[in-house]
């Protein structure tokens, strides 16, 4: 732990963190307000090391975005297209098959697949996507379809939410990604994504997913119009859900990229905000196992530093990231396993190659 804090307000929070006492909304706001970035980092680092020592997790994974056609048209999105727009696409199962067979590495452990809310693809299409992956990659974990997509699939499957989830499970789904909650605030919902499910619906879908025996991640899209209060309230809502279900595996702060969106006047997130949000997530989400530094959005350099600001996971190789890059991300579209290991080791952490469910693949010697 750090020898002294520049901001004396952090000492009472330090006491709590050292005694495993849950932080309050007000504590969270103090952490956002302080200019003592290193102090906030040190608190998060203490909590991170208590849970994970100097281990940093990563996964050999691949991102697949089956379509960019989406009827939601959220203001912060640069990826979505209308059906007749140029550049609109939807993978057939043959195209998916082709993409999957391009990468032959037997190290692949996770497929992360999400897409737009397509206006008329039938439920069978989604089952076929899962079955195709399962057929070509019988051993990888399929992490697919955010709560928003699962809600949409329920509306086209003519089944209950629980039955829809079970049908997806049967077709090969192993885990659900954390996207789609954005910031759980009615104000932000109204302003930025009115056509998408609201926070109550998202919470209901997530709880049902967990009740059906699937784990999921959780995220927060920050750095647009939200206030620090709204961020902290978002984290507390996630913490409450987690108290009830225990179904969240990792929390991933998502740094907003504005290029090519309707919010393109908003500048990139400051590194201070990126690291604070990572650290505060670690500190507030005391019932979450893992906090990710998503290098696609933070950039490789800041993601490395985030390992000492509360993050214990660097996500993975990704291979071909599309969503953030359509909004102007300057990071690579993918990273080699070697590069990830170097990012971890050169910062004095120990790499731990995991699968989607955080089981060890092999301790990398």
């Amino acid at each position, binding site marked *: 732990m750090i020898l002294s804090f520049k901001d004396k307000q952090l000492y009472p929070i330090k006491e709590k963190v050292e005694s495993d006492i849950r932080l309050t909304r007000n504590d969270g706001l103090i952490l956002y307000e302080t200019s003592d970035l290193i102090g906030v980092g040190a608190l998060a680092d203490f909590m991170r090391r208590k849970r994970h020592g100097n281990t940093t997790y990563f996964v050999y994974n691949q991102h697949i975005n089956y379509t960019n056609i989406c009827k939601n048209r959220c203001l912060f999105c640069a990826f979505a297209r209308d059906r007749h727009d140029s550049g609109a696409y939807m993978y057939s199962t043959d195209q998916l098959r082709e993409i999957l067979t391009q990468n032959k590495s037997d190290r692949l452990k996770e497929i992360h697949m999400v897409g737009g809310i397509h206006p008329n693809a039938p439920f069978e299409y989604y089952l076929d996507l899962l079955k195709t992956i399962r057929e070509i990659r019988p051993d990888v974990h399929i992490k697919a379809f955010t709560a928003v997509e699962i809600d949409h699939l329920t509306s086209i499957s003519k089944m209950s939410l629980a039955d829809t989830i079970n049908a997806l499970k049967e077709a090969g789904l192993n885990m659900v990604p954390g996207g789609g909650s954005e910031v759980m605030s009615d104000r932000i919902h109204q302003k930025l994504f009115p056509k998408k499910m609201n926070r109550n619906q998202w919470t209901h879908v997530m709880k049902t997913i967990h009740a059906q025996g699937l784990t999921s991640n959780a995220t927060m899209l920050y750095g647009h119009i939200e206030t620090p209060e709204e961020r902290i309230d978002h984290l507390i809502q996630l913490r409450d859900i987690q108290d009830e279900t225990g179904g969240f595996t990792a929390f991933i702060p998502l740094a907003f990229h504005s290029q090519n969106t309707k919010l393109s006047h908003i500048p990139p997130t400051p590194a201070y905000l990126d690291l604070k949000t990572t650290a505060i997530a670690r500190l507030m989400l005391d019932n979450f196992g893992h906090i990710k530094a998503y290098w696609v959005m933070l950039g490789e*350099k800041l993601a*490395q530093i985030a390992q000492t600001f509360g993050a214990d996971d660097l996500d993975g190789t990704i291979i071909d990231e599309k969503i953030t890059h359509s909004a102007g991300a300057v990071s690579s579209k993918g990273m080699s396993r070697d590069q990830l290991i170097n990012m971890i080791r050169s910062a004095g952490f120990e790499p731990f190659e995991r699968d989607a469910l955080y089981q060890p693949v092999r301790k990398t010697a």
Partner: protein
Amino acid sequence: MKNIESIIDAVYQGKRLDTDAAETLYHNAPLLTLGSLANHLRYQKKPDPIVTFVVDRNINYTNICVSRCKFCAFCRPVSHPDAYVISKSALDQKIQETLDLGGTQILLQGGMHPDLSMDYYLDLIKHIKDRFDIHIHGFSPAEIAHMTNMSNQTYDQTIDQLIQAGLDSIPGGGAEILVDAVRRHISPNKCDTNTWLKIMEIAHEKGLPTTATMMFGHIETPSQMIAHLVRIRDLQDKTKGFTAFIPWSFQPDNTSVHIRKATAWQYLRVLALSRVILDNVENIQASWVTQGDKIGQLALTFGANDLGSTMIEENVVAAAGVKFRLSTNDMVRLIQTAGFQAVQRNCVYESKKVYESLNTNDFIR
């Protein structure tokens, strides 16, 4: 070997760090501990939460260079199709653009050209000073050594002539690592350690302010890097002539040194260590040009109090494949969103323009 706590205590009590203690700290102190120590010393030296920057342009009068350092991607031989010596009209245009953009200085540097005479350099300065009211920060010790050798005179004479022609200050380039064993390997044709230091000493004695730099992350050992810092500190004790110190990491692309680039982690460690060792240097500059805007901002809490220059034009680092760009607006935003007041300064650290502060909610946004 002293333990970290006692070393840190000693630094807090105002004791100077010796070489052994510096090595212990560099190898063993956690990143955040090193950062908070550097940040403490930064506020001791500069109590106000102000971050300064300068608006300038790098003008490279020639890329023809006989030095052919292994780490360089900018230099060309005389016969190369891309080889150039700048024309007066191009020079004038670049300077006028700089002034139009609110610039106050130019950084005038170039290769070690085999044929240019002393008169060329003196004429270059006079030409600028006759036409423009602009500060010339020009000719690193490596160039001064080269022009002195070419004209068979003493360093003293060369520097007198440059001052008389209108040179305002000397940049700290060409220092690389001030250890001859390293220099012989990476830049065998460039001035040696003693010459570099001697030229700076003479300049300081004649009242010419200079900066000092360090290029790390190539073949040097941590001990050699620390030796460099101690040499700068020793000369500063004697002359008080260094206005700022700027460490930056070697960029290996397009050079003949094939190594893995120093990570952001290493950069922040070296930066923080520089602030701790250089207890007699006022200003430590962040190198956003090599690190990007995110780590550039983060550097402000790891010991740096200055973001260097907006660099309307920069060619040397860009030639090595790294092209970060910042407008004055970007620079101000970077400073303000880290909670500091942004101040545009001139080359000798006098305030030129103070930017309005953001309110708290804006900066944590």
